[in-house]
């Protein structure tokens, strides 16, 4: 079986509800995987395709909200759509603050669930894309020599070539060479472009002071 485009994971202890959700989401062409408890759903199952998790709050063993925290702690980033028979406001606030996509009360409207699932998948897709871009940038940044990184850090902090040359004790022309080679390696078209890239990489900028 070929890898599906996306996966929707469902964790609900009620098999009947689980099957119904699977059927509904399956009908819009999405791949669904069903689990009866949080323990059965192993984070390792999260593959590199966009995915989301439909999570019941009341579960045997560990509750949905606790499971959300556990996933976050183990750096598993998956958008979560909560479903519960009766959510109260504190519960909802906690879930949303922890990054839940949606908090639906059972029985929910089918469109609400589908919308939430699409939103969650879209969010995951975007996140994955961003992460991929970031990985490329990081790779490029890794390819810079220590001196080039030093120069880039100073450039993005707004220092002039002359100032940089004075700082590192070299000729202005040498700085220019480092700078243009770094721009080339990072595939930055302009200084502004480079600044944005470095910001995304969250490299600490080197201020003169």
């Amino acid at each position, binding site marked *: 079986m070929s890898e599906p485009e996306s996966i929707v994971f469902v964790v609900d202890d009620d098999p009947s509800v689980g099957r119904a959700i699977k*059927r509904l989401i399956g*009908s819009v062409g999405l791949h669904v995987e069903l689990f009866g408890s949080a323990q059965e759903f192993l984070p390792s199952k999260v593959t590199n395709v966009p995915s989301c998790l439909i999570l019941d709050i*009341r579960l*045997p063993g560990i509750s949905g909200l606790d499971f959300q925290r556990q996933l976050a702690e183990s750096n598993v980033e998956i958008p979560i759509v909560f479903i519960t028979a009766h959510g109260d406001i504190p519960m909802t606030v906690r879930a949303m603050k922890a990054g839940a996509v949606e908090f639906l009360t*059972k029985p929910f409207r089918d469109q609400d669930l589908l919308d939430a699932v699409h939103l969650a998948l879209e969010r995951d897709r975007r996140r994955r894309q961003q992460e991929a871009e970031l990985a490329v940038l990081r790779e490029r940044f890794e390819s810079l020599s220590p001196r080039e990184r030093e120069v880039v850090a100073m450039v993005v902090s707004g220092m002039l070539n002359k100032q940089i040359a004075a700082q590192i004790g070299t000729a202005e022309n040498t700085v220019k060479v480092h700078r243009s080679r770094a721009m080339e390696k990072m595939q930055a078209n302009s200084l502004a472009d480079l600044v944005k890239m470095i910001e995304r990489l969250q490299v600490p900028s080197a201020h003169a002071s």
Partner: protein
Amino acid sequence: MVSVSAALTSSYDYGEVARSVLTAIAASYAGLDLAGRVTVARGRVRLAWLGGGAIAMGIGIWAMHFQGMLALYLPVSVEYHWPTVLVSLLVAVLASAVGLYVASSRKMGWVEALIGSAVMSAGIAGMHYIGMAAMRLPAIAQYSPLLVMCSILLAIFFSVVALLLAFDLREETRWTVPRRLGSATVMGLAVSAMHYTGMAAVRFMPSSAPDLSQAVSISPLGRNAIVIVTLIVLLAAVVTSSVDRRTGADIELLNQDLERRVAERTRQLIAINEELRKEIADRQRAEDALQEAQAGLARVTRVLSMGELVTSIAHEVNQPLTAIVTNGNFALRQLDAGTPNLKQLREAIAEIVEDAARASSVISRIRALLKKGTPDRVELDVNEVIKETADLVRKEATRNRVTVQLELAADLPSIVGDRVQLQQVLLNLMMNGIDAMRALTDQPHELVIKSTRSADGVEIQVQDSGMGLDPKQTERIFEPFFTTKHTGIGLGLSISRSIIESHGGRLRTVPSSRGAVFEFILPTDGAGAS
């Protein structure tokens, strides 16, 4: 009419006549007296009184008559044919017997009176004329039909008067003795009148000497003997009667006293009984009210424990509803798409039906527990009741990370009890168990419900794996309003205990090394009476 000169001249000894009248009065008195005794007596005693009375009275009447005959002096010697005399005595006794019998009968109508007096008068007239026929003297007796008729009429009259007087006087009333004396005088005079009329009807014409075989002459001594014997007999009869009456009266008096006392006691007893009945009714009413109050209270606590369960229950109803709604939406989408996947559609609809049944069964379970009703005793499978209750709390248990474990014996006898009430007890014990384990984090949370067969019924145990009970509080926990929980009114166990007791069982705690154990036995004979 025969020539008077030819007849023998007769004269009367008036002293003798007077004595005969007195004898008649005495005999009458005795007769009236005896009629009363005969009336009062029953069975063989009555027969004895009737026989004795008839003999005494008969002798009296006969003696009067014989005396009357002896009072007649004829110029010839008169002897008496004694067998005939004996017959006349017998007739007198019979006539007396008839008289007494009629006078002592329960009621006397005209028919009885007439027949009685006819027989009596026939007897008396018979005695009189048979007595006359016993005379043996050298003369022929000629009778005047008119006077004979008169005498018979008088006999009838006498009989009627005698019967009526006797009937009237037989009951003991005031002035009985004077009235009886007066009546006896009237009767005695009537008897005498009849006798002397009969005597007057005869003329003795001289003739040849009579046949004197078996004839005796009565000497003056004999006359006196007859009078004395007669009086003795009559006296004996009256005295006996009087003693009997006195005894009867004493007994009567004692009887009356006894009856009065019995009546008094009966009245008292009836009053006491009435009071007792009222008290019992009051108590019954109070008991009914108490029972009603208890049932109400039981329901309130049931509702309260259901309240604790409400989140779980809502969840339990919501789950199938969610599945139904989701499946329904799926089905609509499939249909709207135009090319439905029939296999999936079928599955979805089948599950809708299933889940709807599931939701409705949850609701009916809850409704059964919440309904207000009088206890209903039916034959129950204890295991089934345990399973149903465990189903109710399972969600709540899961939420609190408690596993519910049932260890049910297979061969349990059925018991008689109220399903809802027993579910309430189990629910209460299970919820208590879950509550007891809620706060603990390190131990496994286990709720074990066991059913086993015991000697006299079914034993049920509910065990948790919590902290267990404070040994100092093992009895206090059954007291009303005693609670160790923050939210609780402390009625659950006290009501559970009263429910089990009303089923003839007992709810208690059992010492255990692990957690708290509650145990109750439900007897198979359904001893619970209320």
